[in-house]
């Protein structure tokens, strides 16, 4: 998959790795950067999935799905500066987020929202990488198989939510 070849409206079935993090973990990463500390994870080349998994069961790593990306627009440039290739979440993002995707040549994917039981079956491995104390808001690494994605903002700055 070449990020810059993707266009708004493209549907993909992705197999590979995501780094999962949401509001609290990104707020903490930002504070660490401001304090000049070394980050506990490398974001270079990562695809960030905005999510907070539920509890694992005997048969699965637990229900999982995207959370609202717009809340984390204020951390998006930090992620891109650290080498993040793409983000995955749900919902419309701010104009600033769209221009950042264009400026850095990055992509924003939607994952299906409210499909947590089905997505649980597409996770083949999950490990906690950092910030264990944050519970569901920690940073996780997951391997996914046949994970449905939809291009909502492409690297040219086209946005599916701006149609008029």
């Amino acid at each position, binding site marked *: 998959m070449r990020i810059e070849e993707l266009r708004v409206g493209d*549907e993909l079935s992705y197999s590979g790795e995501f780094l999962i993090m949401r509001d*609290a973990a990104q707020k903490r990463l930002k504070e660490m950067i401001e304090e000049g500390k070394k980050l506990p994870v490398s974001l270079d080349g990562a695809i960030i999935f905005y*999510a*907070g*998994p*539920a*509890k*694992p*069961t005997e*048969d*699965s790593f*637990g*229900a*999982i*799905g995207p*959370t*609202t990306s*717009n*809340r984390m627009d204020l951390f998006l440039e930090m992620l891109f500066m650290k080498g993040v290739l793409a983000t995955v979440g*749900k*919902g*419309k993002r701010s104009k600033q987020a769209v221009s950042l995707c264009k400026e850095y040549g990055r992509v924003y994917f*939607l994952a*299906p*929202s*409210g*499909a*947590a*039981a*089905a*997505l*649980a*079956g597409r996770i083949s491995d999950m490990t906690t990488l950092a910030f264990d104390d*944050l*519970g*569901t*808001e920690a940073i996780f690494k997951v391997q996914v198989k046949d994970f*449905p994605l*939809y291009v909502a903002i492409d690297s040219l700055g086209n946005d*599916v*939510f701006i*149609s008029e």
Partner: protein
Amino acid sequence: MISAKRIIGNLEEAISKANSEMDPKIVELLDLYDGPFSSVLRENAAMAKDSGLPICQDTGFLEFFVFQGNEVALEEPIIETLNSAVKNVYTDSPFRYSIVSDPLLNRKNTGDNTPVICHLFPIRGDELEIRFLVKGGGSENLSRLFMLNPSATVDELVHTVVESLRESAARGCPPLKVGIGIGGSSDKAMVLAKLALTRSFDEKHLDKDYAALEERILREVNDLKIGYQGLGTGITAYSVHIETYPTHIAIMPVGLAMDCYIARKGRVIFED
């Protein structure tokens, strides 16, 4: 006396079901949807029901609406019973703990999805009715309070609601169920908006003019064509429900609340 054990038992069952089983009406409408992610959404509905996994990983916070008759005797303060029921369900099920103990200074997860939110409505009689919403954060963030001018017209109210949804609906996992509280005070209007969400999809306002207003707002919201997942295909809202209350001559509070496409709720009734 209605025992805490009895209330907890019935609530546990209702809360588990709300998280794993979609309302039949939602399943029926989902079958008609053929836009992006339609197959995975249908697969999810079936899988959650069979496996007991939640439909959505955001298993929400619990908001209760307790109608307690004056002849009803309880073993303990009702909020303690509600907290026990939620703690039991969430610690026993593959549901997520989404509550932090302090909103600003120390957002530490409480580890059992409590405390709950509880609104009390005193009524006459020997009945205890408990309604609840399992409310996700995504749709909750779209809640709004508008303090309209007391001379505002129906058109202005409709415009205010529809414009708010035009801006926000795509972030709340549509199709949405929309609750509107009109009147009371600022806080009462918000509670009424939430209470409106405890109604079933086909439960219209008893006053025919308000029922017609519900229909009108639903039509205008669906004309926004925001669609499933915010991607423009299918309906934008299932239903609009209005609750009203008398208010002060100088104000017209309008509370707006919404549920995401799985509109999780429940209702249990006891007699003492």
